[in-house]
């Protein structure tokens, strides 16, 4: 009988910090520019060029580590990771190794209704490498725009037990980084990158099995798929009595397969040692407190509060909390119109339909002020919910006041039974057959009469009131 295995996964995530300039020089970090246009002697690793640490990057890194509940170390050390490659101009990457600036955190997220807490071993700062592009006119060329861009590496504990859990962790991590404004959450452009360490062990065994590291997982879907493929591969080897070789494997999304990138024998000896061009990094307590204040309420906590205090459904809370701009719109609207469920419904349906996101920002068709005013008009009975959607379509993309649009369109709700009664009596007289059907108990026919009234009043009548009026006039009593 085949052994049952437990899957053990740990993710290493690289997140690009949203600074304007690089980690050790003033070159721009802008994505998508002409190759080699954001370079300097430092980026190029020219002889004599020295690194100077970007303070903004440190602040963002500290904020990220705090959001992941890490301990911040007042003193940490930059180290050189040495290897040769054309996209690495100095022949070493400046990173942190033996003494990172933060350790021992965790990330909480929900999965299938349960709360999961996954350990964060460490968060450290490092610089990105450039990019080799092969086959340009038969040559390999190098673009160093990305070289030196500030990254944090978030090393997760091997606490994940399934590919679904890994993808959920990755999503939760993306949400947190996006929330605190340090990363734009863009996996496709590579500003958030994930490597997965995957191993199997027989159920009940404490000792970890041999792991393989999976590279090139540039979407949430690929994270899940690559792990599934790798688990299947390792299971087949173990079931056949084989052993897993420790290696680095690349995921090929177009084929849904993985293949060996580097075996253990080919593994680099990175010869890490303290970077002598940079003094130890000292993070003063004042910086930690300033960054702690900027972390604010994180998506997970916010969701829980919205469900318990505001009465949102977990599904609605999830949608509204994923992007910080949506959460902000929700809370801002709520401040002016304190009806959480209505606001949540409107944002999920009308507002998000036309929203466009750009990293940490999002464009909405309306402001919180417009939305609150519109919902206020419905609540006051000035317009119907249906009319509100018409008004929304008019104000979307403009800064116009819903109230002004309502009066311009001549919209109003006729909610005066006295003025509607003659119209209803007229319609009953004009449609004796339908009236008789209703009297005989076919309540559904009431809709016909209501529709006629709406048509004649240009949809300004309050439907519930009209419905009640017909019920009364036809003697069937209210529902």
């Amino acid at each position: 009988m085949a052994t049952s295995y437990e899957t053990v996964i740990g993710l290493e995530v690289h997140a690009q910090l949203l600074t304007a300039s690089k980690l050790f020089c003033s070159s721009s970090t802008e994505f998508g520019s002409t190759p080699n246009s954001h370079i300097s002697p430092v980026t190029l690793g020219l002889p004599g060029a020295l690194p100077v640490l970007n303070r903004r990057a440190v602040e963002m890194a500290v904020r990220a580590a705090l959001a992941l509940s890490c301990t911040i170390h007042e003193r940490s050390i930059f180290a050189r990771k040495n290897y040769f490659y054309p996209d690495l101009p100095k022949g070493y990457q400046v990173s942190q190794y033996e003494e990172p600036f933060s350790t021992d955190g965790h990330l909480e997220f929900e999965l299938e209704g349960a709360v999961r807490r996954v350990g964060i071993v460490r968060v450290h700062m490092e610089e990105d490498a450039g990019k080799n592009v092969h086959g340009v006119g038969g040559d390999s060329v190098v673009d160093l725009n990305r070289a030196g861009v500030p990254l944090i590496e978030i090393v997760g504990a091997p606490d994940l037990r399934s590919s679904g859990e890994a993808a959920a962790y990755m999503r939760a991590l993306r949400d947190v980084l996006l929330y605190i404004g340090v990363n734009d959450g863009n996996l496709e452009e590579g500003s958030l990158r994930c490597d997965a360490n995957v191993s199997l062990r027989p159920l009940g065994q404490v000792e970890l099995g041999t792991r393989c590291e999976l590279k090139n997982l540039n979407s949430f879907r690929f994270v899940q798929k690559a792990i599934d493929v790798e688990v299947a591969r390792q299971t087949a080897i173990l079931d056949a009595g084989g052993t897993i070789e420790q290696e680095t494997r690349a995921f090929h999304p177009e084929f849904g397969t993985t293949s060996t990138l580097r075996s253990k024998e080919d593994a680099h000896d990175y010869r890490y040692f303290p970077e002598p061009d940079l003094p130890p990094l000292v993070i003063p307590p004042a910086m930690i407190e300033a960054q702690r204040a900027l972390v604010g309420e994180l998506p997970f906590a916010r969701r829980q509060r919205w469900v318990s205090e505001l009465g949102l459904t977990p599904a609605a809370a999830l949608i509204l909390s994923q992007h910080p701009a949506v959460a902000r719109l929700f809370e801002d609207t709520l401040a002016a119109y304190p009806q959480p469920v209505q606001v949540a419904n409107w944002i999920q349906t009308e507002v998000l339909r036309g929203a466009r996101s750009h990293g940490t920002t999002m464009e909405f068709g309306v402001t919180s002020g417009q939305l609150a005013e519109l919902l206020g008009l419905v609540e006051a009975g000035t317009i119907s919910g249906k009319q509100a959607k018409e008004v929304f379509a008019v104000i979307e993309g403009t800064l116009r006041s819903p109230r002004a649009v309502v009066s311009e369109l001549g919209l109003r709700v006729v909610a005066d039974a006295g003025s509607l009664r003659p119209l209803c009596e007229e319609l009953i007289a004009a449609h004796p057959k339908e009236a008789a059907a209703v009297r005989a108990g076919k309540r559904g026919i009431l809709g016909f009469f209501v529709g006629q009234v709406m048509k004649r009043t240009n949809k300004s009548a309050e439907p519930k009131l009209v419905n009640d009026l017909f019920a009364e006039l036809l003697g069937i009593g209210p529902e």
Partner: protein
Amino acid sequence: MRDLIDLGVAELAGRIAGGEASAEEAALQALDAIEQGKHLGAFLTVMADSALAQARAIDAKRRHGARLGPLAGVPIAVKDLLCTRGFPTTAGSKILTRADAGRAAADPTRGWRPPYDATVIERLVAADAVLVGKTNLDEFGMGSSNENSAFGVARNPWDPTRTPGGSSGGSAVAVAAGMTPAAIGTDTGGSVRQPAGLCGVVGIKPTYGRVSRNGLIAFASSLDQIGPLARNVSSAARVLGAIAGHDPRDATSATIAVPDYEAACTRDVRGLRLGVPEEYFGPGLDPDVAESVREAIATLQREGCVVRPVELPHTRFGVATYYIIATAEASSNLARFDGVRFGLRLEPPGGGLDGLYGATRDAGFGPEVKRRVLLGTYVLSAGYYDAYYRKAQQVRTLIRRDFDAAFAEVDLIATPIAPTPAFRLGERVADPLSMYLGDVFTLPASLAGIAGLSVPTRPTRAREDRPALPTGLQLLGPPFSEDRLLAVAATWERVSPTHPLRPPSP
């Protein structure tokens, strides 16, 4: 005529600033002296046109009534390890020269031309110095005899069959042979102090962090410092004052204010406690060198210094510790010379990326550089790191503590600068270890990051096997005590029976 360039830095700058002499004339004299001394191999690049243009601009500036800087019109030579915008910068290595017909070329005119000046160059220019050229050196500063230059040896003006020392050999020769009143060198393990001592000039290794390393091609980043060489103490002090100070482009540069080093040269040294470590006077020290240095120490005692013994017990680990830490850093610092972006690029057909790296670095680096890259790679390797690199860092701390403890007892320390006077070219080439051991007196101060200088003492007496040769007193002080070292050195210089020193005419 050498009347102008024979002056001290302050006198020459004063005359030019006062209009009694022209910067152009001083530059012409320097360029002529460089030409006359060509056989000494001091220079890799002579910047004749730009030096004259710079000098004329300085003269014009004065005529227009502008106040000139502290180095007004002073011709200065700079070690070719500092980046000079638009001028060949070679580090003494073929790896920074463009290939010639698919081969590495021993031709400094093909050298890499940096797009920027080192901070020290900017500061010299801002002080109105005139840069006359780039001086010869051991490749990347790795050596103690200038024999590791890819472009030929430099020769000691006291005896051209002998080494001027290294690695700032060319800078020491330029000053000792009277080509320039001052020069800039770099000191990683003694590379300013030792050639200064062997050529009979003053050389300062400032405290680590005192002078910006921005634009200095790195050998060992935690040890490298830039310092001046000059024919007298106050000249060196004035140049140091011009180049020292915080630089936001070097994260390891200190924010401590720069004192008036020149004024310090006239300070009273009576009562200063001068420590003499017996570890520096043991076997292997040339008896005549020992005698010369002890004479200087005795003279300082007569001038009011209090001389007392101190202990520096970890001195004997200095060489081993240095050659682990310096080579480790060098192996990483030199990785950028890969043929991809600048300098030499050799591509053997079909060799691919590894072929490019291998051919470029094999042809571009000399044997000593390769030896040190190999050593450094080894000591950082998995499985050896703890035994070598980490252990060396621990010993470095012990060496630093030796000095801390000594400086609790004394104000400065006096030692010989090198165990022997200048040795013959070729004498130690086949025996790297004997070459390394010659640095035994300068390495500990580099590891500790403290201030040091070398000032000439009485040359050794001529013997059958060697002529009279310079030697020097090394003064070491706590971090940022350059002013104190200068005060003591200047005091010695004032009473020294052999100052000013001149090499014999050829």
